[in-house]
């Protein structure tokens, strides 16, 4: 594999913002490995990148926890480190697409990703594309998509990093990393180990008197290896590649009142290779990728493999027109416990940007997928931004988008024995949104706010229902979604002090229109485990190298059944922490202390799944 890496090295053309460096590489210009920006053909929609500052305090946690704590998105968590599935804009856990360095990593057999097995430290950047984006990314992106990216720099010389995090309930994480980058070559090798006993106390609601018990059978161990390489071939070409091996062993935390002893082992291999060729106004990209997932649940083994090959051409025709066209081929191989199936998928995609004025931009995208010889719905998308107001200190932008998305029935939906139905239709959606963005900047103060309203209709939603002797999937549910998203980000840096505040709020209505299998009491009701309200805010202040923060999370009531009779109460969590940057000779580092769930709130995200109370963590990281 290392040999393979040496063959497929990468490079970059685009000059990136200057990054602070240590040692004698300080004067050198820093460049990044090129990656096409996600928002390039997404006029009318919003792509948000979570700040590194926000992620620092979450090192060692999983992606599900990060999104739960730092965004308005709701993650259904079945316990700390346990299954975490994302809902975006009130859609199901299979209605969002997860990408790693441009590779789709949703399981083709399950149609979704388990966000708990993606450690935060496994990527440098997390971006959220809000709203329907099937035309840009393909299947599953009905409610939106999440993108994990690795960033490589050049001209930084050698750098060693080590870090550790120690926390309550047996949490102990370690990380080691080595980077080397010169003018034309950049490499990073990273290894990590995350471990948590999760033996936290909780009130056992299943027993008379709700006695205090200590959670058992919830241990999580994770080890991983990552390798990123970038290589400048010449001033017109670059190659980059990333490899990620991740092992997660879990005791599955049982629901209160059960004595489950389930064990799950996940083995995930991901590899991607990008070749870019830059020529005048044209950028060629060839991408190859491999996603292998092996899931062993109580010794029942399920494996899937996705080989991906794509090529596209990005052409800046003029100052006003830009266009991109491409073709993607995916070979999906499934070796599941009850069936085997191979499938070829071809998809063509096209996008065009039109900027009639500097203050105005429109994007049109189109995608057509053929899977296993069947045609998925054509997915067009049209959106636009208009900067309607601009002064030296103020800026206002209106945006709107209308788009169609789809979800290919999963391999399990179509081929599971018994019950799989090969004739299932893809789930499909229409979505529209309007947004307003405002920015104010004056001196050391900056504020940015965003407000968006969306409506969405998802049809042919697949549910598994009991049939004669077994369960089988049907295209049966129809759901109307609508909601509001608010995001505010402020920064103020007077002198040595710095203050910041972030607020996320989401109002998500997801109303069942179909009543599923004749259950009329579900018609017109909010989908289960979809809170109407979710909000989070983080306030931080600091001086020089010391920063403190307080974060609050509010999750509203969630219905536990489709007829909305059972309700899980809303909960609020508060975290506080302090961190300090350290610089001693050539060693830079930071250390932090954090108290999570400060008020020791007893809460459940999913009914009867215990969550930890107040807990502490200390993290230290050094770079040499």
């Amino acid at each position, binding site marked *: 594999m290392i040999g393979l890496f040496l063959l497929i090295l990468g490079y970059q053309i685009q000059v990136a913002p200057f990054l602070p460096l240590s040692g004698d590489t300080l004067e050198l210009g820093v460049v990044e490995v090129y990656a096409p920006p996600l928002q390039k053909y997404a006029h009318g929609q919003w792509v948000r990148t979570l700040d590194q500052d926000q992620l620092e305090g979450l090192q060692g946690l999983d992606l599900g926890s990060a999104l739960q704590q730092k965004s308005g998105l709701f993650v259904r968590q079945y316990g700390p480190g346990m299954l975490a599935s994302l809902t975006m804009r009130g859609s199901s856990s299979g209605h969002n697409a997860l990408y790693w360095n441009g590779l789709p990593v949703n399981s083709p057999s399950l149609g979704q990703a388990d966000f708990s097995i993606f450690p935060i430290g496994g990527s440098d950047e997390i971006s959220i594309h809000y709203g329907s984006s099937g035309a840009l990314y393909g299947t599953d992106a009905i409610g939106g998509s999440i993108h994990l990216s690795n960033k490589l720099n050049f001209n930084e010389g050698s750098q060693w990093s080590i870090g550790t995090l120690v926390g309550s309930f047996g949490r102990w994480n370690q990380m080691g990393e080595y980077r080397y980058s010169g003018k034309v070559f950049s490499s990073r090798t990273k290894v990590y180990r995350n471990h948590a006993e999760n033996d936290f106390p909780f009130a056992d*609601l*299943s*027993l*008379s008197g*709700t006695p205090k018990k200590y959670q058992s059978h919830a241990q999580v161990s994770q080890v991983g290896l990552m390798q990123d390489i970038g290589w400048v071939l010449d001033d017109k070409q670059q190659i980059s590649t990333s490899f990620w091996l991740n092992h997660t062993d879990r005791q599955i935390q049982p*629901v*209160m*009142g*059960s*004595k489950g002893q389930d064990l799950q082992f996940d083995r995930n291999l991901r590899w991607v290779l990008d070749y870019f060729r830059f020529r005048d106004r044209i950028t060629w990209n060839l991408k190859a990728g491999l996603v292998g997932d092996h899931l062993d649940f109580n*010794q029942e083994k399920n494996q899937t493999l996705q080989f991906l090959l794509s090529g596209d051409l990005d052409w800046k025709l003029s100052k006003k027109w830009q266009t991109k066209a491409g073709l993607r081929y995916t070979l999906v191989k499934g070796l599941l416990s009850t069936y085997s199936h191979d499938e070829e998928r071809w998809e063509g995609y096209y996008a065009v940007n039109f900027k009639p004025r500097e203050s105005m931009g429109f994007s049109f995208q189109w995608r057509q997928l053929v899977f296993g010889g069947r045609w998925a719905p054509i997915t067009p998308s049209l959106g636009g931004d208009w900067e309607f107001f601009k002064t030296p200190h103020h800026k206002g932008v209106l945006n709107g988008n209308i788009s169609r998305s789809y979800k290919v029935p999963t391999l399990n939906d179509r081929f599971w024995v018994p019950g799989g139905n090969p004739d299932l239709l893809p789930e499909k959606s229409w979505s529209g949104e309007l947004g307003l963005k405002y920015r104010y900047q004056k001196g050391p103060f900056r504020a940015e706010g965003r407000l968006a309203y969306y409506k969405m209709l998802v049809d042919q939603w697949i*549910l598994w*229902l*009991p*049939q*004669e*002797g077994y369960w089988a999937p049907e295209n049966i549910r129809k759901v109307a979604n609508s909601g509001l998203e608010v995001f505010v980000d402020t920064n103020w840096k007077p002198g040595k002090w710095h203050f910041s505040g972030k607020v996320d709020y989401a109002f998500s209505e997801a109303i069942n229109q179909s009543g*599923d*299998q*004749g*259950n009329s*009491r*579900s018609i017109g009701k909010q989908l*289960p485990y979809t809170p109407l309200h979710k909000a989070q805010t983080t306030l931080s202040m600091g001086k020089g190298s010391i920063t403190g923060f307080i974060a609050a999370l509010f999750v509203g009531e969630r219905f*536990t*059944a*489709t*007829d909305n*009779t*059972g309700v899980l109460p809303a909960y609020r969590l508060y975290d506080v922490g302090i961190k300090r940057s350290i610089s001693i000779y050539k060693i830079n580092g930071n250390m932090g202390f954090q108290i999570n769930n400060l008020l020791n709130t007893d809460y459940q995200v999913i*009914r*009867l799944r215990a969550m930890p109370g107040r807990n502490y963590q200390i993290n230290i990281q050094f770079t040499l």
Partner: protein
Amino acid sequence: MKNLTKKLLFLSLVLCLSFACDSVSPEIPSGEFEDGVLIVNEGAFGANDGEIYHFDPETGNIQSDIFELKNNRPFAGLIQNMYIIADRSYLVANTGKVEVVNSADFTSRGAVSGEDLENSRSLTVFSEKLFISDWGPYDENWENPDSFIAVVQDLDGGPVDNKIEVPSRPEGMTVYNDKILVACQGESLMAVINPEEESVDRTIEVEGTPFSFFIYGGQLYLYALGEDEILVHPISAADFSMDETLAFRVSEPIYNGNYVLGNDGEMYVISGNGASTVVVKLSIVSGEILDETFFAGNNFYGLGFHHETNTLYIGEHNGWQGNGNVIRVNATGDELESIPAGRGPSGFLFP
């Protein structure tokens, strides 16, 4: 004359006492949940959301989740069976627990403690002791070789005092002629337990997969399922033999073995395990199927019968997509009303 006087005096005393009793002793009102219908909602696998609903047919009022309402905590289990035994009600969960509540108001009296119960199925009382059938743990082949009857010494629960090894998958039980009979599904056997010695006397082969016992006209029967047939075995009081089995051809009788006895030896069973289901009416008196399509619908899961009003209660699981419904049906098979229920309504009690 002297005798007559004595008799009159005695009669007067009795009458006096009777009226006196009526006047000084207030009538004890029945408890909140000692009238109406208790709906057992089994709950969904993995969610442990089994609960009891109370329905008042006179007012139409439905009280959901009465265990949680009265005890300020969810039941947190999958309810396999519920029994009302005098002032105690027992909730038997196949997630490995038994809770004891007051029949009148559903407040907790206790529970079987410890970690001994695994997959509890049914319960009976003998000589102030609880006997609980339990499948025991699953092995790697999803079988239950270590099934048992748990014995608890206190009617209000407490620790398991003894485990009586029985053939695999003990389901329904009944006390009969000072023995406890146990329907063991795994090996199609009926175990005869000596409850005093807490041991198995012997086992008897059963045709079909046995589920549970019922009495009609003083005769004990064992309900069993064959392939596309329902088997009703009369059990001999002398030697527990089963010689004159009644067999009814019913397509795909529901896998959970739910049935209910109506009036006049009529029995109602569910045919179909998928979305399309039908209630079939049988007679264990004539041994014939009376109506192959007594009531048709979707997702039928549980049955109950109110003898006084001749009303059939049918639980619908609604494809397990959320909560279910209960349909009330009259003697001629006409729907009276549909009422909301919890997750997987599987049984009914009429206290």
